[in-house]
């Protein structure tokens, strides 16, 4: 479009002149509003004020806006000094705008890891139930109490007995939760700066146990009433170790962030910078 130099080059920088018009207008308008709740004379005075302000404003803006020349500032901005070579790259050189993490775990590995961890945890819990209460089904029934309201009212005897629906529901809960948590593990582990296994095996199980402790009486009153915390935490740790170990064992893949678009879409082409 126009290539004419900005007009201040020719005759200084113009700024609109100060004016009281708008302020008087606003005051008039407010007085008019105030007239409604006080006395009509206030409103009339407000209207007069408003008109006075409006005239002032109008003459300021028409036919051409009244302008004044800006005083050139005494203080000039300090020139910006280039600092070549001062950029620290997150990863390598070519990937300056890299988004972290550069490498992630496959979602699939997270879910599989979660499932395996869930099985280990279940075995642990069942064995514990067998040892301390002499029943294979005790732990399963308690877990099923999350969804089955009847469990809350069961006696100790009933809890030790086999319930088909308890088994089905317990397995479903255990699987779904394990896979979901495993997926979260897979997503979160790559952004943990260090101590990944510690995070997976100890910290998360502890946080999870804390969360359970705070909410269990609402979510699963049956489990809340019978839970033994040390065993519970131990079973969580078993899950954490297994899942974390599996995910880390499976290794990472790099994200596609610095691939060429064609590569991302899976086209086989030559001459484009390919992925890693």
């Amino acid at each position: 479009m126009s290539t004419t130099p900005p007009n201040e080059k020719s005759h200084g920088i113009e700024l609109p002149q100060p004016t009281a018009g708008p302020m008087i207008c606003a005051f008039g308008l407010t007085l008019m509003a105030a007239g409604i709740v006080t006395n009509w004379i206030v409103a009339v005075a407000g209207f007069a004020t408003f008109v006075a302000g409006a005239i002032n404003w109008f003459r300021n803006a028409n036919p051409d806006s009244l302008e004044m020349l800006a005083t050139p500032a005494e203080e000039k901005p300090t020139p910006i000094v280039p600092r070549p070579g001062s950029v620290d790259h997150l990863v390598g050189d070519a990937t300056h705008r890299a988004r972290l993490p550069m490498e992630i775990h496959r979602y699939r590995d997270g879910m599989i890891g979660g499932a395996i961890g869930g099985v280990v945890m279940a075995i642990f819990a069942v064995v514990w139930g067998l040892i301390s209460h002499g029943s294979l089904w005790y732990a399963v029934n308690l877990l099923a109490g999350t969804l089955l309201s009847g469990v809350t009212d069961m006696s100790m005897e009933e809890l030790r007995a086999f319930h088909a629906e308890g088994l089905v529901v317990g397995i479903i809960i255990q699987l779904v939760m394990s896979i979901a948590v495993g997926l979260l593990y897979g997503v979160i582990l790559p952004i943990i700066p260090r101590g990944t296994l510690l995070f997976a095996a100890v910290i998360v199980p502890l946080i999870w146990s804390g969360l359970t402790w705070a909410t269990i009486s609402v979510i699963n009153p049956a489990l809340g009433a019978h839970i033994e915390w040390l065993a519970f935490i131990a079973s969580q740790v078993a899950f954490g170790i297994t899942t974390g170990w599996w995910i880390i064992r499976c290794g990472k893949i790099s994200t596609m962030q610095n691939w060429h678009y064609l590569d991302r879409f899976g086209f086989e082409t030559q001459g484009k910078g390919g992925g890693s």
Partner: protein
Amino acid sequence: MTTAPAALAPPEALPQNGIVNGKIGIACMIISEIAFFGTLISAYVFYIGRDINGPYPQEVLDVSIAPLKVLFNSIFLLISSVWIWLAIRSMRKGRMGAFIFWWALTVLCGAEFLVGTGFEWYDMIVNDGVWMGTNLFGSGFYTLVGFHAFHVTMGLFVLTLILILTLLGHVTPKNVEKVDLVSWYWHFVDGIWVVVFFVVYVFGNMPIS
């Protein structure tokens, strides 16, 4: 691609004159006015048929005021949109005489509309005894139609001011862009009347079945 001075060449300038700003500003004002009227209109529509005592619109709007009369007034208002468009066109071409003619015609038509509204209100208040507090219809009618009339009045005031300034020779073809913005507002006032008319006199005035 290491150093690309071409890419550093100053990009195209964006338009930086006040007229574009003015257009955006007026457009924004119109949008906010639409939101305002939209609310009044929603309230009016919401209350259609909810009155528990008369007079109902069917009695007032149909019987005492020939619908034709309102239509007649409306046509005056709507057609003024054409006049103002012609006025701006003349001004663009530098024909100030034609501008004054069309502009004055716009003012006259707008004034006719207001006078018509005045008669209608007089009729309703005095002959039918409908006012704000009479019933929901009265509340809604006077609020909605009244606010529209208020906007017409404001518009007329500005139009007249410009007419006077033109006659005094203060407005020249180089002000056309500013004057054009006023015409946008006028078109808005006309356009919203179409909706108000439809809601109040047609939709809200259906025979009770």
